[in-house]
């Protein structure tokens, strides 16, 4: 039994490939929005002592418990989150790794399951006093923004936030001033990633005021052709403008990837077909698969499906797979409590993937 510890995994995602906004072929896999807020008249996290941070946490906890709409929120002290449970929560809610650093008074509220397809969390005493964040599969900016501001509105009933009429919401880092609104999308760009145009593409993204990184922020290399793109400017623009711009940028990214796919199909059809079936062969016959290798292969299979160039595999949600084949998730699903070697996990991973995506399993 998974038990209470993993309550947050229940309530599966519906409408897997986000089609709410223009997103053919599921190129944008996920949308995440973060709002940073600080309590008015209080020192920010960096300048606060341990007891001051605890006081902030107590104040936020008190407010959350007083708000009717927050009845279903679960509270976790970051210090107490460990092992599989921590790993699963962090991945499922897309919480940044460094939130786990042991800092006094750091807390996390999560809403189990999904609300209108959005997973929400409130982080206390990270870079700023309060960070409200929401994630949703697919390209779903408006929907996620609505959820996140809904939480903010509830909090505002009990707490007042540091604000300046010139600088907007005051945040510890000047990079977040103004709206303190950060929109991040995860993009799957398997063809752009190998195309010689990738350099120009990255430059272009930077030039239009966005940042582009590897999805796995811990390492700079791109794994599984997954990119993370977010807005850089938060001040001098309204929330609506930032959302509109980000939507336009996403459309541009999608078009660029689709163009690159068309071009590749024209230039080197056999090459790409070969690549897709090689990946298929490896997934079908390999006995052990590391997480990184599995992602690389699944990315190419996903591309094959999107381009109608492969038979013999089930349609699958690539973004969901990213979380499904991690060591922690395998251990949870197989009810392994620990003491398992990496080799054995790689063996299980290959088996799980075969069962999930191959149409005929011997």
């Amino acid at each position: 039994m998974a038990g209470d510890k993993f309550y947050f995994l229940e309530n599966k995602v519906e409408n897997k490939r986000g089609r709410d906004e223009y997103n053919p072929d599921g190129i944008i896999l996920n949308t995440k929005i973060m709002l940073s807020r600080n309590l008015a008249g209080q020192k920010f996290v960096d300048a606060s002592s341990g007891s001051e941070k605890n006081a902030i946490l107590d104040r936020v906890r008190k407010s959350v418990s007083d708000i009717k709409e927050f009845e279903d929120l679960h509270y976790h002290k970051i210090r107490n989150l460990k092992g599989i449970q921590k790993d699963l929560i962090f991945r499922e809610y897309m919480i940044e790794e460094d939130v786990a650093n042991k800092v006094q008074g750091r807390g996390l509220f999560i809403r189990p399951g999904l609300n209108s397809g959005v997973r929400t969390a409130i982080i206390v005493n990270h870079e700023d006093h309060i960070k409200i964040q929401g994630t949703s599969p697919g390209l779903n900016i408006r929907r996620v923004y609505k959820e996140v501001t809904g939480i903010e509105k509830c909090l505002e009933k009990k707490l007042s936030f540091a604000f300046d009429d010139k600088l907007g919401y005051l945040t510890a880092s000047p990079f977040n001033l103004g709206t303190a609104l950060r929109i991040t999308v995860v993009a799957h760009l398997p063809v752009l990633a190998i195309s010689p145009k990738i350099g120009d593409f990255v430059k272009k993204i930077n030039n239009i005021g966005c940042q582009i990184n590897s999805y796995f922020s811990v390492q700079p290399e791109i794994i599984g052709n997954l990119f993370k793109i977010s807005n850089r400017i938060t001040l001098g623009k309204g929330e609506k403008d930032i959302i509109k711009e980000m939507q336009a940028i996403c459309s541009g990214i999608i078009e660029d990837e689709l163009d690159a796919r068309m071009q590749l199909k024209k230039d080197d059809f056999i090459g790409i077909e070969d690549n897709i079936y090689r990946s298929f062969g490896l997934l079908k016959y390999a006995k052990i698969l590391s997480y990184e290798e599995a992602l690389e292969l699944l990315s190419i299979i996903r591309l094959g499906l999107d381009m109608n160039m492969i038979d013999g595999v089930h349609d699958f949600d690539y973004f969901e797979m990213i979380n499904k084949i991690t060591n922690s998730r395998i251990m949870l699903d197989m009810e392994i409590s620990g003491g398992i070697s990496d080799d054995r996990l790689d063996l299980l991973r290959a088996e799980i993937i075969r069962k999930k995506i191959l149409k005929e399993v011997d």
Partner: protein
Amino acid sequence: MKCDICNNNEAVICLIKIQGNDVERVNICRECARELSLLDGVELYNDPTAALYKLLQMDNTVNNSSGKSKIFKSLDTRKNLKCSYCGIDLKTIKRTGRVGCSNCYIEFKNILFPVIKSIQGSLENKGKIPVNTSKKIRLEKSIRDLKRKLQNEITIENFEEAAKIRDRIKRLEKNIYGR
């Protein structure tokens, strides 16, 4: 119109960059444009938009080369001032890239605002305003105005008036922060 780079030849390209409220104009002559290897002659006459695009790109690449840490490296810490409210000093801000409280933005305004400007390209909030704090913002704004007035009174050595203003600031601050 003369070229802004060589100050000699007649300019043939006028580049206007609008960022927030700032409008920057650069006039460039054909020779300088070529020297900057931005465009060859053919391109300039056949496809002026492509030429302009290249110029804009160059401009942006320059802007982008200043990454997060670099922006803060330019922070002036010759006088390592400390914020009177949270106690954080400029060297720490420079190192972490984060300020210690709302008051830092007021006290280190002269030092931080150019940094914010270079990061965000603007110093004017156009986003939403908190629902329940409009009164507070008004109060904070008057405190800022009063502080400016206070400085003026001190410079002209009108200490009697300065003392009155100081008391008003204290009252307003008590009103906002409850201390």
